[in-house]
């Protein structure tokens, strides 16, 4: 046992569906290590990520993240999570998204520093839904890294130079990193391990 990520024979089936989204997944990520999950659309990458952050419960099997259950809100405050969708309500300002995440995590980290790190203006009061897609994804990435969480979980991040730099710095700092991407590109080399999913099962 360790305080990284331990997934054992994980099966997740969504309510109202006959077929599990993922079946019998087993994987280990040691503390400070990384994992890139890849596979085609519908292969179960996002379901595995959502199970790791406690958004879907396991139908069978078990998950331990940083030594706790993902259903524990205290644990989730230690996770920096960027979903695959663009998760901001209409009318929200960039700075407010960071304020909310910072308050939930209980961090005093500088919002200006986080925004600068992802390539945005240090004091960004723009409305998020008025931004270009690339900048919205930067806001999502900023939310994930704000406060230097112990575990970084990025679902389908774009391969910006800033993204790669952030992942590299996080690895150096000992952060555990999980990345899901349909097109893994340079991510497996960056994080060190690669799990390929196909139709909900590990290849």
């Amino acid at each position: 046992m360790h305080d990284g990520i331990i997934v054992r024979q994980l099966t997740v089936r969504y309510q109202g569906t006959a077929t599990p989204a993922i079946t019998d997944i087993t994987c280990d990520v040691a503390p400070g290590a990384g994992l890139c999950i890849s596979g085609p659309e519908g292969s179960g990458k996002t379901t595995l990520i959502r199970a790791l952050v406690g958004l879907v419960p396991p139908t069978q099997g078990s998950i331990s993240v940083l030594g706790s259950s993902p259903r524990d809100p205290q644990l989730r405050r230690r996770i920096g999570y960027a979903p695959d969708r663009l998760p901001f309500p209409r009318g929200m300002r960039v700075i407010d998204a960071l304020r909310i995440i910072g308050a939930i995590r209980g961090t005093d980290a500088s919002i200006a520093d986080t925004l600068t790190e992802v390539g945005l203006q240090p004091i960004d009061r723009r409305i998020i839904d008025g931004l270009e897609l690339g900048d919205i994804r930067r806001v999502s990435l900023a939310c994930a890294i704000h406060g230097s969480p112990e575990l970084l979980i990025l679902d389908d991040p774009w391969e910006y130079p800033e993204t790669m730099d952030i992942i590299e710095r996080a690895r150096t700092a000992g952060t555990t990193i999980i990345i899901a991407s349909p097109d893994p590109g340079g991510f497996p080399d960056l994080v060190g391990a690669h799990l390929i999913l196909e139709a909900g099962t590990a290849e």
Partner: protein
Amino acid sequence: MTLSAPATIFRVELAILTRRIWLQIATLVGLLILGIVALVAAGQSGQHQIDILETNSASLLLIGGMAIAIGLGGGAFSRDASSGYLGLLVGSGMTPSRIGAIRIAVRLVALAAVFVIWGIGMQLVSLGIGRGINGPLIVHVGAALENAGLVLCASASLASVIGPIAAGVFGLVVFICAQAVVNLKADLDQGAIDRSSRVFIAPVFSILPRAIVSPMIAALQHRKDAGPAAPTIDINGLTVYVPASRPLDVIWTLLWTLIFAGLATYGVRRRQL
């Protein structure tokens, strides 16, 4: 000073709501209507002048207030749950039930803010036509707010499981039922319908939420000038006047509002985020 997570989410989401164009337009249209009411009332005199202000204000609060309550309640969860925003908050450490409670509270505050703005507008009209502060109208704004709060929470209670329009329709149906039981009770008490109906009416009146009727509406009914907010009921040639709600009715409906708010919070817990 660093605010707690619920306080920060509350503040940010309230700011987001105030940027919603439809809410801004609805609030401004209400004020515009009050401006027209002022012009019409200025040309009248006596009791009729006060009645014009009160009936039209009551109509605005009923129709406009319900529309806003349905919009706020019906749209409380579905879009932001589908977009992944609620999932981001949960994935970052909030509990779904806390998010649900905060979002209901934000929407109730926004609804109250609109009623306060309109209420101030109504009092300015009253002052403008030389009638001073209208106390019954202040009480009526509170009664209408309670009704609208019930609709908002009823809509929100289903907003995590069905679409915003269907959830809004449910909220409206809840209010129609609440008004119906109050009307039926008045019909029964005033002998407009047969006493044998008590076995049906008494239980539903005891159980269901009750629409809150302000003393102003009750008085307007007697003056046959209540407008769409409180039309008199004619049954078998008898005119039925719906009496003002008692404190117990106010508490009972507040309790139902809390029940619906609790159901909304529970729905967010059950929903896939």
